[in-house]
C-alpha cells in the first residue's frame, strides 16, 4: 500500500499553468504563449512584475498624480492582455508595451486638455521661476509632454530612437531633435543639480 501511494505524483502540474521557474529562465515569449494559449495567471503575473516598474515610472512622470499613473498602468495592461494574441513579435515585448502605454497616456493628456506634440519647438511648459528651488521631478514635469516622453523613453528607459519613433508615431530624426531640446532645457533649469550639487 505505501509503495502504491509512494509512486503516485504528489504534485500535479496543470497544463494551463507553469511550474514556478526563476524569471530569467522564462523568456517573455514563453510567458506570452502561456497567457494566450492557456490564460495562465501565473505567466501573466510574471509579465506584470517584470515590466510594470518601467511602465509605472513613465506613467508617474506623464500624469499629474500617482492615482492617475496607476489608472494608466492598469489600462495599459488591460489593452495589452487583450491585444497579446495579435502581437507579432516585430519588436520586443517591452517596446510594444510602451507603445500601448504611450497611447493610453496620450488619450489621458488629451482629456486633460494637453496634446503630446513631439515635434513642438518649445519644450518647456512654463518659464523658470526666478527665486524658487527647482527639483528634478518638477523640472521633468515642466517639459512639454512630447519632449518629456522622448526624454523619459530614451534617457531613463533606454529605448533607441528607432523604437521611440515606432512608439510615438514620429521619425527617428524628430526623436533625436526633441531629445536634444529636452536635455538642454533640463540642464538650464537644473544647472546646479545637473552638475552634481543637490538643490
Amino acid at each position, binding site marked *: 500500500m505505501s509503495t502504491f501511494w509512494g509512486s503516485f505524483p504528489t504534485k500535479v502540474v496543470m497544463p494551463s499553468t507553469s511550474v514556478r521557474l526563476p524569471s530569467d529562465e522564462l523568456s517573455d515569449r514563453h510567458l506570452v504563449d502561456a*497567457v494566450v494559449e492557456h490564460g495562465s495567471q501565473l505567466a501573466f503575473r510574471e509579465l506584470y512584475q517584470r515590466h510594470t516598474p518601467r511602465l*509605472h515610472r513613465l506613467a508617474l512622470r506623464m500624469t499629474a498624480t500617482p492615482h492617475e499613473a496607476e489608472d494608466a498602468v492598469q489600462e495599459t495592461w488591460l489593452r495589452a492582455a487583450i491585444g497579446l494574441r495579435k502581437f507579432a513579435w516585430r519588436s520586443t515585448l517591452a517596446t510594444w508595451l510602451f507603445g500601448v502605454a504611450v497611447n493610453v497616456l496620450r488619450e489621458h493628456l488629451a482629456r486633460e486638455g494637453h496634446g503630446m506634440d513631439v515635434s513642438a519647438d518649445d519644450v518647456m511648459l512654463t518659464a523658470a521661476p526666478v527665486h524658487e528651488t527647482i527639483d528634478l521631478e518638477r523640472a521633468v514635469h515642466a517639459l512639454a509632454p512630447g519632449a518629456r516622453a522622448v526624454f523619459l523613453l530614451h*534617457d531613463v528607459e533606454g529605448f533607441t530612437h528607432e523604437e521611440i519613433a515606432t512608439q510615438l508615431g514620429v521619425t527617428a530624426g524628430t526623436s533625436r531633435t526633441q531629445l536634444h531640446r529636452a536635455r538642454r532645457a533640463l540642464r538650464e533649469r537644473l544647472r546646479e543639480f545637473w552638475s552634481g550639487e543637490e538643490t
Partner: protein
Amino acid sequence: MTQQFQPEEDAPPVHVVERLRATGMPDAAVERRLIAELERRGVLETRRRRSRTPWLIAATAAASFLVGLHLGERRASSATPAVPPIQARETAADNAENSAVAVSSTVLWF
C-alpha cells in the same frame, strides 16, 4: 557657449538618471483589480475553474478505483486457497461493490 549637438556629451549625468529610475511598483490593489477584470473578460483562467478541471476528477476517480481493486485482491489472496465457484463469484461481486462505492463516494465528494 554654443555647443554642437553631440549625443554622448549631451546625455544627463548618471545621478540624474538614477534619481529618475528610483520608483517602485504601483499599489498591489492595481494588480488584483487587473487580474479580476481579465478573469471576467475570459482572458485569464479563473482560479475556481482551474481547481475542478475534468482531468483531475477523472484521475482521482481512477485512483480510487485502483485502490478498491487492490484491496479486493488482498482480501481474496488471504482467503483459503480452494475457493468454491459460488464463493468466488461472491468475492468478485464484493470487489465490484467496493470499487463502485469508492468511485461513487469520490463523485459525491466532488
